[in-house]
């Protein structure tokens, strides 16, 4: 019996769908879902080195949040994540918005600038971190050299070694690295705004500030939703830039410590100072994960509400 094309097509179609869907599901379960669940399970056990000891219930969680040794470190790091979130929200996302507006107006050479703004995003974070570490070197770094050349010797500092500037330096390096991303997303959002709306506003005699505040900003709300949510997640998972630029200890003396570094040190140990504790590391990772999921969802819901359909 010969199957008609109408009959074979659904089967072929299903196979095709399965072919597309099954590998990512297997991949996700194996490399995302399973590790998350096992980390969750690890957090309830005592660990003797690498061997799982007895079930200890919530003890690891208690230690991480309230223990005399861990808690001060964790809360200190959490505070730095919050600083980073606020600062990056203003510098990175705000800067991205301004850059996008400038590019949107298509100034001379905007095509070049559009690429130039985005190039650092493409670079590896390791390279960016290393590059900024060189720039910020107190003795031969380009930043202090420039200050000396301008006669501003008093402003030159050991940026990454000074507790008052180290975290700020990391935040600026991160903003330099990623500002192209919000710029591009906002630019796309602005280009989606029907030009007649902006034209109409201009005819009504709005100035630049009113235009941005009352027309553009509300209309790029979908871009804002995605950018704020991603930055929130990124700020609490922050690891690469601090790791490359100040090392696992959050040097100097914990003033740049963030939760990502604390997690790594706790779970895997710091070669030059501390020992591994999978249980506490897993507990911290679980808490961090739940915190991000809950707050990122709330943030997304709240941001969604202010989006306008047009």
């Amino acid at each position, binding site marked *: 019996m010969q199957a008609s094309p109408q009959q074979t097509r659904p089967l072929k179609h299903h196979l095709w769908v399965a072919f597309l869907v099954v590998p990512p599901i297997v991949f996700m379960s194996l490399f995302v879902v399973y590790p998350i669940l096992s980390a969750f399970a690890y957090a309830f056990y005592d660990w003797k080195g690498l061997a799982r000891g007895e079930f200890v219930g919530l003890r690891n969680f208690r230690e991480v949040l309230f223990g*005399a040794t861990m808690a001060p470190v964790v809360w200190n790091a959490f505070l730095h994540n919050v600083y980073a979130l606020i600062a990056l929200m203003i510098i990175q996302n705000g800067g991205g918005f301004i850059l996008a507006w400038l590019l949107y107006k298509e100034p001379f050479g905007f095509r070049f600038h559009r690429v130039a703004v985005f190039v650092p995003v493409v670079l590896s974070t390791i390279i960016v971190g290393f590059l900024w570490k060189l720039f910020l070197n*107190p*003795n031969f770094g380009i930043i202090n050299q420039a200050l000396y050349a301008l006669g501003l010797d008093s402003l030159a500092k*050991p940026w990454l070694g000074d507790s008052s500037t180290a975290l700020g330096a990391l935040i600026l390096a991160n903003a330099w690295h990623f500002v192209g991303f919000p710029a591009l997303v906002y630019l796309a959002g602005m280009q989606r705004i029907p030009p007649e709306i902006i034209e109409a506003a201009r005819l009504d005699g709005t100035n630049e500030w009113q235009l941005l505040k009352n027309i553009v900003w509300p209309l790029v709300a979908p871009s804002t939703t995605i950018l704020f949510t991603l930055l929130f997640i990124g700020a609490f998972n922050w690891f690469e830039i601090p790791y490359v630029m100040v090392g696992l200890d959050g040097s100097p003396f*914990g003033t740049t410590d963030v939760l990502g570094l604390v997690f790594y040190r706790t779970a895997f140990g710091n*070669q030059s100072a501390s*020992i591994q504790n999978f249980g506490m590391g897993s507990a911290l990772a679980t808490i961090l994960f739940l915190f991000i999921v809950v707050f990122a969802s709330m943030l997304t819901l709240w941001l969604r509400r202010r989006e306008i359909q047009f």
Partner: protein
Amino acid sequence: MKLTRRILMGAAAGSFLLSTGAAMAQTELTFWSWRQEDKAFYQDTIKKFQEKNPGITVKFETYAPENYATILSTALAAGRGPDVIQVRAYGNLETVATPGYLLALDQQNVPELANFPEAALAAETLRSDGKVYAVPFAMQAQLVVYNKKIFKDNGVNPPKTWDEMMALAQALKAKNITPFANGTATAWQNETIVGGLLSSMLGKEFEADIVSGKANFTDPRFVNALAKLKDISQYFSPNFTGVDYPSSQQLFVAGRAAMFAGGSYEVANFKNQNPTLDLGVFPAPILKAGDQALIATYYDGGYAVNAKSEKKDAALKFVRFLATPEYGTAFTNTLKNLSPIKGIKIEDAITQDVAKLAENSMSYLMLVRFRYQEPGGSVLLQSNVQKMLAGQQTAEQAAADINKGIATYYKPFQK
């Protein structure tokens, strides 16, 4: 479908034949290490071993040091891992040895353990059962490395006392030479600096008192030594709080600084980068005449046998080979790192000096005694010294903070 199955079966059968064929003739050991830079030396050692032990081959595999513990842990936890393992010492050894992943060594299965001094074996001993789990491979020391040419050009000699050291540093600085290349931006450098510069002022007696609980870290000997360190930090590299480990090394290698307070392991590294350097070493300066000049020593790690290995006999043979004076001599002379094995012949002049200085030494205190629990002594010392040298706290505050952290678990301090 059929064709693929046939190919797979063929491949499986082929690989089975190949592997059994090899196993009959040879026992292949795998040997894991984090010392990629010593690969040539280890290949050479393996060749010598294989000549003496036909029938055993050793495969040397390395992993990056920062990931080594994680990769090894994962493999061992899964019941796999290499037959012979390069492991670290003290607290880091416990992570691997406590769960029973390593084979206990004694005079029966490794008679060559008699070739090692007590302190070296102690570094590879598990505190809970008192058994040795690895054959130690290197002793390291914290001391002062100096550039002989700069010293000679300026007509100065290695200082004996702290006052001489201060005067020397000032004299060099007056001539626009950076006295110490050291910087404190990399946290663990603060610990090596303390070991290199303050050991003689702390002294063996202080260590004994800490162990017995007669003194703690608020002891005047410790506080005063830290205050002296703060004092001499004015002679570290310019903007030293922002100078990280690689930058400080480069400063010294380029011959722009006269001294480097740090590990004996730096010497070989410095010489590799700049073979024209003429280097010497001296111990931490003493406070007053009559005190003992000391360096701070510790053991790096050892070679262990996987308890789950199916080739324990061959693995033990290899580990025994790594415990012979013949191996120790080759290790010391090739890698310029001091093997702890007794009766080795040292060619290199600086390594000879280090070996001689090591005869009178104290422990590299925090690593040897306080890296077993959190908050570790090293973490506390590193961050508090870093904070003190940045001018954010006094020596008293630093000492009090270090003491407070350790006292949370260290019984002798809780009396």
